[in-house]
């Protein structure tokens, strides 16, 4: 099951050129771009691991693409990689854009678990199949 988190996730995967253009847009807006990765795709897993440092002072997308390729060398096929753009202006101080650039080769999806509580009431929870295996050995 294809993970749909962040922007563009219902579209086909972006090409490098498209990614670079999005990154340049973010930089021109004054946002700093971060590269993040994780192997736990649960939607509530908000904070992914940060690759390197936030790129506050990179004026051109090529610098970000360079780091993204470095990150791919290590994690491509095994982890999700996403880019996020942080707007530090006062009153925003949060992410303005976030999209997945790379996915594991196979995405097993999520299980829906039903727990019966208090008579007929049911509680639902989702669990990634990938998370059955230990961290680092999921994909």
């Amino acid at each position: 099951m294809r993970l749909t988190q962040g922007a563009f996730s219902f579209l086909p995967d972006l090409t490098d050129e498209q990614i670079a253009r999005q990154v340049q847009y973010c930089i021109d807006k004054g946002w700093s771009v971060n590269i993040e990765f994780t192997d736990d795709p649960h939607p509530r897993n908000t904070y992914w691991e940060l690759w390197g440092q936030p790129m506050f002072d990179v004026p051109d997308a090529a610098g970000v693409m360079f780091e993204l390729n470095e990150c791919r060398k290590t994690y491509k096929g095994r982890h999700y990689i996403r880019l996020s753009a942080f707007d530090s202006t006062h009153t925003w101080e949060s992410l303005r854009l976030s999209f997945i650039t790379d996915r594991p080769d196979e995405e097993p999806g999520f299980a829906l678990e039903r727990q019966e509580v208090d008579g007929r009431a049911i509680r639902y929870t989702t669990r990634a199949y990938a998370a059955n295996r230990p961290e680092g050995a999921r994909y």
Partner: protein
Amino acid sequence: MDAITDNPPALDETAERRGAIDLGAEFVSSGLAEVLEQLDRELVGLVPVKQRLREIGALLLVDRARAHFGLQAVSPTLHMSFTGNPGTGKTTVALRMAEILHRLGYVRKGHLVTVTRDDLVGQYIGHTAPKTKEILKKAMGGVLFIDEAYYLYRPENERDYGQEAIEILLQVMENQRDDLVVILAGYADRMERFFTANPGFRSRVAHHIDFPDYTGDELEAIGGRILETMNYKLSPEAQEAFHGYVGLRMRQPHFANGRSIRNALDRARLRQANRLFASARPVTADDLVTLEAADILASRVFSGGIDSYPPLST
């Protein structure tokens, strides 16, 4: 979510493709004419350098015209090395270079990142690579100017981390030619030794530009411009004294071309301020902007010494 969603502009180039391009008009419209003219106007001397910049500009322009007609244009290697004595304007020209390349669309941002060995080479094992990459990332889309590049390579210390920085630089210079232009600068003889020890660099640097020393007249013209920007002027006698000063100073050791002139004028301003202060009479605006002969003649150069601070013992 914020994102770009615009469509690529519709392609309608077939009509233009058949026609001819007026290179002259292109030269003006790209803004290159203006930059080169400004270069001519603002930088004294440096004839071979300007000539070379013109050639590079022409090549890029022709390449652009070729691309317009759909002819294959291999993106040229634009890495350069600037060699020359101290104070010959290497950094100033590098800054202009970034602008020229930006106007021609060869670098996307046109910013200049100036670094020396300190910024590239780390202090312990494993520190150099991230540091160098950080700088390279910052410079991408612009021009990376490595001042005194020969310090990167220290043959006397085989465990020096400079070699690691050089390897990363070479790799990026080769693989990401479109993203980054590297300019190496330094004194001619030491750069020569640096290139001999690192043949990889020599072959990756396409343009070797030598900055000649300034002549006496050029130095005086430079002095005139420096004073103009600082809102000072020389009295006629001072002009004469300055002429003598330049002639003497050029023949002395530790002469750093433009920089020496700037320093000399700074010291003359110091003396002028002192003189005005000591004169104990009301000063006029004219007094404040005029450097007198005495301000220049007080220099140690005229008594056979070297005008520098701290004083050199010779």
